């Protein structure tokens, strides 16, 4: 199987990463060599194997639904690239 340029561009859309044409070609080459290496897994028959989703054999714990942090709105907003009062600002989304 080979990953073509069209697929690379489609994946970059899904991943929300803009990609220049030249870089897309290099990335397609890299991905192909990595997947060539990954294809080794097809040697194994795994029909009857249970997938391992978590190594920690625990069930998720419940906690009381209450606020544990102090009012940290100011601190949180301090890291935002653009803000307006108590809001994060993004480019216009409605016409």
């Amino acid at each position, binding site marked *: 199987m080979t*990953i073509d340029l069209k*697929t*690379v561009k489609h*994946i*970059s859309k*899904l*991943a*929300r*990463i*803009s*990609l220049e044409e030249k870089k897309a070609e290099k*990335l397609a080459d*890299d*991905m192909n*060599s*990595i997947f060539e*290496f*990954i*294809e*080794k*897994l*097809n*040697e*194994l028959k*795994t029909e009857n*194997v*249970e*997938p*391992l*989703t*978590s*190594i*920690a054999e*625990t069930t*998720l*714990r419940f*906690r009381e639904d209450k606020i544990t942090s102090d009012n*940290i709105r100011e*601190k*949180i907003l*301090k*890291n*935002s*690239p*653009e803000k307006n009062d108590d809001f*994060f600002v*993004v*480019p*216009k*989304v409605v016409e």
Partner: protein
Amino acid sequence: MTEITSLSLFELIKNIKEKKISSNEIAKSFVDRSEKSKKLNAYVTENFENCLKLSKEFDNKPNFDLKLPGIPIAVKDLFCTNEVRTTAGSNILNNFVPSYESTVTQNIWNEGGILLGKLNCDEFAMGSSNETSFFGNVQNPIAKDLVPGGSSGGSSSALAANLTPVTIGTDTGGSIRQPASFTGTVGLKPTYGSCSRYGIVAFASSLDQAGPMSKDVKDSSILLEVISSFDKKDSTSIDFKRNNYSSELTRNIKGIKIGIPKEYRVDGMPEEIENLWKKGIEYAKDCGAEIIDISLPHTSYALPTYYIVAPAEASSNLARYDGVKYGLRSSGESLIDMYEKTRSEGFGEEVKRRIMIGTYVLSSGYYDAYYLKAQKVRQLIKQDFDQAYNKVDAILTPSTPSSAFKIGEKSNDPVSMYLNDIFTVPVNLAGLPGISIPAGTDKNNYPLGLQIIGKPFDEQTVLNIAYSMEEKINYKNNLTDWWMK
């Protein structure tokens, strides 16, 4: 007296408790040496002034009951530190100042440790040579233009160069053990669920684990005791009885069964690694261990499995970097355009490559063929270890298939870079504890490490074996301080 900076953590604690040296003297020594070692590029953010101030405060009101009384410690820049910039080695977090503290670092400060600075690492811990960091390459103190390993490369470099008495790293596929091996130091990855992941910048959440890095095994046991804790803030933190690792440390390992997996004898492995391993087996026997041949039949599938599971988890973890709430933002004409430009400019090449692989293997039509398949093979890899542990208490292997390489030597070939982690990755996939200890040198006098892998939650046995073998091996880095000249 020997220089303060070359003392072990254990010796520093002893001296401080006996009031032979003050916290401020220790802090000054490490700050001074770090200032003179900028060529190594080990630090991303220095906390020197604050560290000196806090050490004075400690001396004015000392508490010698603490486990790290007034000890300055630099940490990998993947741990969020309250009010101190945390970058994860990435441009996208270049200006990020957390408003909270990771549990692991909080545990260190609670026991009297003082933050010395934040150490360089591969971007989002993705790399084996520290070459993917936005903040540049890190030099290995062993020799000029040699990589310090990765992703905890700033940590291994600072530790080996005596810029910090101990440090902490994170290990997703070998990121503590491989850099330890490349710098002649000790690095321990604990069992998955031992050390809280809260406040650690996430890479692959089912594999990430924090752990100690130190000059000797005893120091790792002291630091592990501090950082290992059950934490409600981490949903996969495990509530088990933790040992007093340092006080229970013993060199009595008589009768312990150590397995030697034949599948780790990989094609093309240099003879010096094979010889090191043989020597290691002899040392283990000398310590009274019983050596047993074992088989881990799915070993060769571990790396391909890892390069599906880790990128898949990373692509979803790194979806949060969108230029809205924190981090870098590039300007765009629309919201989507802003996302795409921010992520394109904010992430480096290796991170983008892994996000792309992860997005691909999780995308519609490929999920079963790749991600589900990898989770099934991961089960087989774990079962290999389960079966081996019916026969043995621990497993001995080389840490890496080679010694440290030159900066730039492997950076253009992702697959050859990935092969560095061939012996460490299976341990993460199975969630086991593993330690790398220095065990010798290659023909260039570069350090080589041996890895001891234990049963889940049995860090004590891993440490005890390492502690016994360390005494027999008697390895010491021969530092020339070339970077200060």
